[in-house]
């Protein structure tokens, strides 16, 4: 039972971390390697909230806003000239990630920072005691996934975004302001990364390099998932679940590389990953 909960919640955490990256990759076809840095910015929003003595839950909207505003600036000044050169965009965002990491170090110092746990304690569930926060993460991941499905399927913005994904030239010819759609999508992606950073704080230490560890995993998942949120959820369940099984029955050290190895194998067999688009 604990194993199943471990698998589900691990997948949920991976999903939360990877959504921001998928949003940007899905619509803009850009791999945002500054994703780890936005996660870190989000986590430091939680630190700042704690310093100001505010309710720790306020860090969530604060981090989304901070991520979105920084995303706006990044898209306008760094990423926009590079849409036709995706490889250069990888370099530029990777460099940006390093710069943000250093700025955070200058501002907050290299030390590990501490934040209050959003939901401490455990709950009794089906005969086992389990971390309340991990169960909350599962709920949060589902809410995030459903919210995003609604955004993409049920709103005007989602319709426009899907039009850009399918055929950008045609979308522009039909009078859609594709530049604006790109900006808004990028902002949502970085905002989600900031949000994910706050949600990670009860699980990990907060330090200037915390995002890097999560970047590789989410990059692999997004490569496997392609452009669809359903595929991302599937990838997280399969790969995250496999990671827990390997860690439990073989070795936690091998478990740490399970996601990367499986992703490589999946992409070798099926270059488009799980995406049918």
């Amino acid at each position, binding site marked *: 039972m604990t194993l199943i909960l471990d698998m589900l919640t691990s997948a949920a955490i991976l999903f939360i971390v990877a959504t921001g990256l998928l949003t940007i990759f899905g619509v803009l076809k850009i791999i945002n390697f500054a994703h780890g840095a936005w996660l870190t910015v989000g986590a430091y929003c939680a630190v700042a909230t704690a310093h100001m003595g505010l309710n720790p839950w306020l860090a969530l909207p604060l981090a989304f806003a901070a991520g979105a505003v920084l995303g706006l600036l990044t898209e306008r000044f760094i990423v926009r000239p590079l849409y036709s050169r995706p490889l250069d965009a990888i370099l530029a965002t990777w460099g940006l990630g390093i710069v943000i990491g250093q700025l955070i170090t200058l501002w907050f110092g290299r030390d590990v920072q501490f934040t209050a*746990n959003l939901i401490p304690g455990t709950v009794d569930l089906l005969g086992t005691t389990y971390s309340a926060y991990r169960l909350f993460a599962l709920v949060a991941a589902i809410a995030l996934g459903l919210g995003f499905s609604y955004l993409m399927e049920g709103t005007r913005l989602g319709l426009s975004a899907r039009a850009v994904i399918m055929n950008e030239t045609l979308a522009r010819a039909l009078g859609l302001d594709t530049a604006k759609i790109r900006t808004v999508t990028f902002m949502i992606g970085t905002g989600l990364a900031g949000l994910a950073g706050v949600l990670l704080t*009860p699980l990990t230490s907060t330090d200037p*390099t915390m995002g890097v560890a999560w970047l590789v995993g989410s990059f692999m998942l997004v490569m496997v998932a392609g452009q669809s949120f359903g595929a991302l959820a599937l990838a997280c369940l399969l790969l995250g679940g496999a990671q827990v099984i390997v860690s439990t029955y073989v070795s936690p050290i091998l478990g740490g590389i399970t996601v990367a190895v499986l992703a490589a194998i999946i992409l070798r067999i099926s270059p488009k990953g799980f995406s049918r688009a």
Partner: protein
Amino acid sequence: MKIPKIISLVTGVMLAGTAMAQDGEPIKIGVPVGLSGANSVVAPSVVQAAELAVDEINAAGGVLGRPLELVIADDGSGAVGAQKAFDSLVYRDEVDVLISMETSAARNAGMPIVTRGQVPYIYTSFYEGKACSPYLFVNAWVPEQQVPPVVDYLMSEESKTYFLVGSDYAFGRGMLEFARNYIEATGGEVVGEEYLPMDGTDWTSIISQLKSSGADALITSTAGGAPNVTLTKQLRGAGVDLPYANLAVDEGTAKNMGADAKDILISASYITGIDSEENRAFLAAMAEKFGDELRTPNDLSVPQYEAVYLYKAAVEKAGTTDTRAVLDALKDVSFAGPRGVISMSKQHHAPLTMYLGKVMADGSVEVVDAFEAVDPGNQCPNL
């Protein structure tokens, strides 16, 4: 008419000279330390401790009438930076002694330079043990001193089965290997031993195994800083409330972790709460000298402070800064510092009083037990 003026001027200068009591060339102390890289969090506290010791000694007249002077060099916390730092300290600055807290990688990289340059080297960081050289002295703990107090205490609290968790690197594995042998030798049983890479963040499956193992107690030895915090947060999140001894957490980190750190057992040769005249005086002097800039003194910075005084005692005993004579004297001298009376008398290592501390709900560390003069064991039988 003019002559008395000159005389009075000359005597004035001489008086000023004797007032400072230090006409000689300064004695240079080289401090290679990790101002950047992994040790950068703790290095400032080490430098502060060295500065206080030098200030105090100079204010009291120096050593053999000569003032002490610190030469700090960044070793980048690793081997490459250490080679540069040791090279420039030994050959360019021509320091009389090296006193420093460093990573094991940096120490190993610096040793050939120390041997070639023939400089006494006092190493002030706890480490995995068995580093031996005629030039090297160590005044901090080795596993033989740190692990037994923790295990003995847990045994006395009726913990018979243990689960060990660590980061996958030399120090983490070395400490837990020692812990496993000691537990088995004293009649306990290890029911699980698991590691995660140093940059690993997901302890989920290890925690689930710990919970299903039925262990009475948990002993961890992760890399300092982030992995330690991550593991503790996830343990508390999963509701683990077993007796929990952490071989790698320092007092400051434990304080900052707040409620999550409550009831963690730590084993150290220095805890700020040590109730002695020397420790109170040391803490007061640090607070007065550094004010708001003060980094909390800790198990890595206090040995640095004491090592400067041990070197002073050795030079005074030898009557010279000559390497051979100082090395001979370092074996015999002792200094009563914040950690008690320290003497590097056992094969260049120091018997130490080890403190078992428990983190309280408000983050302070309370001394549960003190183990006096814990022997470092046979670290260097050939010395």
